[in-house]
């Protein structure tokens, strides 16, 4: 999260900022304008809401559940920069912390490793091609983190050795996460254009 302090500066210089026009100089401009606070808040709320919609996508593996909240983090990163991606990835999972502490830590790490690379790559050059590269890079990072995380966290919940969990990588963890990030990527790619239209309004 330490990135948030310096990255926002450069975002304000590059991205189109609707909150600078007609500025009164009070709270409606700057790095933490009220509009930014409100946008971050609503994106975090959206991430929270979607993080509760979870369902298993591989039959029989109950604890590997798909939830669409990663899409919100990706969109936030594309629209507002890496700081927003980090805020949404972390705060979006806070409600889960008191229900599933270890799982939440892992979910946050996976969300960060997915949305941050994507946001950084897209920010460097805002093209469709870069968005695609960003999504793929994010998915690769997130895949690694998800598998390593599962190796560590699963034995805490179930009496399994790391080796036993490792045996599940190919039949379960890998296909699940590939599928998950593929859905994330395809949906993000499909919905990003209308959303930017809205944000630029």
């Amino acid at each position, binding site marked *: 999260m*330490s990135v*948030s*302090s*310096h990255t926002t500066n450069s975002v304000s210089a590059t991205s189109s900022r609707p*909150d600078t026009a*007609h*500025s*009164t*100089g*009070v*709270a*409606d401009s*700057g*790095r*933490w304008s*009220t*509009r930014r*606070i*409100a*946008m*971050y*808040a*609503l*994106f*975090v*709320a*959206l991430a*929270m*809401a979607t993080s*509760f*919609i979870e369902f298993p996508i591989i039959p029989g593996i*109950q*604890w590997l559940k798909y939830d*669409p909240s990663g899409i919100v983090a990706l969109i936030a990163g594309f629209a507002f920069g890496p700081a927003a991606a980090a*805020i949404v990835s972390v*705060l979006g999972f*806070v*409600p*889960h*912390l*008191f*229900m599933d*502490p*270890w799982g939440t830590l892992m979910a946050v790490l996976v969300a960060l490793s997915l949305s941050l690379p994507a946001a950084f790559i897209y920010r460097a050059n805002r093209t469709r091609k870069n968005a695609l590269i960003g999504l793929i890079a994010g998915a690769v990072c997130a895949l690694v983190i998800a598998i390593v995380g599962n190796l560590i966290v699963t034995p*805490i*919940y*179930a*009496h*399994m050795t790391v080796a036993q969990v490792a045996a599940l990588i190919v039949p379960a963890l890998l296909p699940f996460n590939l599928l998950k990030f593929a859905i994330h990527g*395809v*949906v993000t790619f*499909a*919905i990003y*254009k*209308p*959303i930017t*239209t*809205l*944000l630029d*309004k």
Partner: protein
Amino acid sequence: MNTTATAAELAGIRFSYDGGTSWALDGVSLTVRAGEYVCLTGANGSGKSTLARLIAGLTAPDAGDVTLLGHRVFASSDADGTAGTATGANPAEYRAARRGIGAVFQNPEDQIVTTITEDDVAFGPENLGLARETIGERIVGSLDAVDMAAHRRDDPTRMSGGQQQRVAIAGMLAMNPAMLVLDEPTAMLDPAARADVLRILDELHARGTTIVHVTHHADEAARAGRVVRLERGRIVGDRRNAADGSVLGTPQPIVPAQQSAQSSSAESAEAQPSPVRSSTAQSSPAERRPATSVSRPGDGDQTNVSTTAAHRPLPSPTATSAAASTTASAASSAASSAPAIAVSHVSYRYPGADRPAISDLSLTVGAGETVAIMGENGAGKSTLARLLCALDKPSAGSISIAGVPVAVDRAIGDTIGDLGTVDSGLTPGLTPDYPPKSEHGSGERRHRKSRVRTLNRRQRERLRGVVGFVMQHPERQLFADTVADDVAYGPRNQRLTEPEVAKRVTDALHLLHIDHLAERSPFSLSGGQQRLVAIAGVIACRPRVLVMDEPTASLDADATARIHELIRTLNAQGVTVLIITHSFAEARAVADRTVTLGGGSVSADATVTTAATATVTTATASASAMDSAMTSAARTDHAGHTDHDDYAVRTNRADRTNHTDRTNRTNHVNRTNHTDAVSAPGSGADTARDERSLIARLDPRVKMVAFLAMMFTAFAINTPLQLALGAVVVATIVAMSGVGPLRLLRSVHMFLAMFVVMGLLNVFFVRSGNALAQLGPIPITDDGVTIAILYALRLALVIILGAILLETTTPTELTDGFGSLLSPLNRFGLHTQELALVMSLALRFLPTLGAEAKAVADAQAARGGTIETGPLPARLRAMTALCVPMFAGAIRHADNLSLALDARCYEEGIRRTHWRALRVRGRDRAFCAAVLLYIAVLVVLGMLA
């Protein structure tokens, strides 16, 4: 306060949203004197909202001079050139001026920042850095001023729109403004709530507050001392109303001249009698019952009518009013054929609701008829629409639409036409129970579980082709890149060929006169245009029956007229239209007849609905839901919520359908803490909560850290002894928390399945120890069983601890604690105050977004979209149709919210005071010590093992 005679002075204002291509305001000069009550009127897009924002100091113009409350906030570069005058916006002056100006906006709920009313009211004063005692006084004073003092501990996000708007006004009053700027504050309110808000504005004005009020209601403008009218960014009228209100007699045409007679009366007839209105409409409310009513209701219904009338007149105008008579004749001939909508003895209760939203409703609508559904908020109007569109399943009764059996009550044969068997079955319905399938009504049916049969997949598809549903604010379901694509969504889901789809789109756009918008992005359009596009998207499915839920709410006269014209056109084509409306004028303008729902009240017996035996009848529904009549009455559950309206109920429901039991738990949190009495003025938050349990009274920071420490360390439990210790500690905490075992069970019940899965997993994976049994190739060992139990129980401890924390801590406390815990990170450049605010606002909007997601999902389902089945591209399109509106909703809320934050003087990095002071007390230290001891013992036991 600055006591200049001028509250606001604007000169030569120009304002453009597109860099000067077009001007939202062009050469506007306006002076508002202190103490004036000024209304700004004009059509949508006339610039009145922009002007209001300028007066409120929330935005700066492109050119011109602005002086607010004596502060020269904006000076044009080409202005007088007085020496020393800075040009452009002057932040310091803006900041100073804004502290004296309150702003209230159209959307009530987007102005609410937190989930406890008094905290919400305190937000502005906190931003002003006022002392705690002062904040306490301000809370009491401002809530009193809007008659919400009794609700200071309630959750404003669950209130009705009218109450929310009053809380929003209180939030402004708490900052002691000299001037209040309101942008269509009543646009989303029903007539009763509207009257409340207007009365409060009058009172504030009488006390000397300057009021600037944007409205497109003629009757609201008539209350003001002065009416300023805008047209295309210019002031075209500025007149003072005579003190005696004689202006009512000669209303200046608020509606543009090209408007039809009906719609201009529609605008003005809301409050005062219009000349168009026939003399029968002036008679007493009881006499205004429809003349077409075939069977008179029984005694119960008479009581019902008088109750309603006493509360507020609810006339049901006849179809023979001057305005509607032309279209009515064409329709009534068609109406004699088979009914398009047949609703028979339908009841519905929202899951978990105390009483049914609809109770034993019967209604028949003939093919080609246009029927207006009226009734107060909470009368069950929207619920009825949802039931008709098969978006909800009635708990009893049958519904058939154009021959499609939407719901078939297997028991209906026994009761139909036999009024005697429909007893006052409401009383048992008062006990809330899960699951939602439970029903009320005559005794012999109560115990049957699911007696209503609903559609199979093919029938559902047929229904989607027959019924069109225009939900409330249908523009919120727009998603595609272009208008044409969006409108094509429904026809494509009907799997029509592309040429046919294109034809449907062209026809639908043409019907609404928006052909020229086809290639535009729906998100670049004005609100009124978006509404028309969304309606076109429903019309393109060529429905034979069209259900519209308040299609003209908060639209201006022009857009309203187009929708009325559409209804008449469709009607002429033989389409049956059911329109839900709050406007009598609208009902008169488009409907053949009006059906009024509601009138039930808590104490009254269930009213018996007349069976619809004739082809054309006017049914009176005894939908005894939570209408506003009862909200003022004894509806106070133990949770302390008093007012639920239609909307709030929907919110609750959406929470559940979202599988967000866990979210609900966050919501329940509010309830636990609201039981305490209203605290004395200025006494602060602490004294009033002494009756709370020990755990609930812990400092949230201490509680969060301690609980998290216990939760994480619980995973280190590996021996039965450690488990026993953990169990004792957790049991003690549960006992001290005051959370009853039943409530605890309810909040952890969905984890039970997880325990089973985890347990089984362990049983299967552990191969050591003695084999107890053999399950196929897998041996079940005693070690396996021991470990399964140990792992399941330690997980249970974690989950119980989490549940206790959430049950005993309000979201406000959580975010306060969160912000305070983060604050040391300030040193590393992290904006902790802002992050805490983001967190707090996110939690506040979580249920709102959940409810909206549900509404969008329903609306798209009604257009035939589904993610579960179909080819991959269609599924992706369906996913897009869900996701984009959800993001659009989030962005819309954020835009409104940012204005509300500005109006409350929030600024990055300001020094804020805190109404709720966090303090670590003796009990917090003791609790910390106990937790540390427990963890130490746990570790020692682990090392001994």
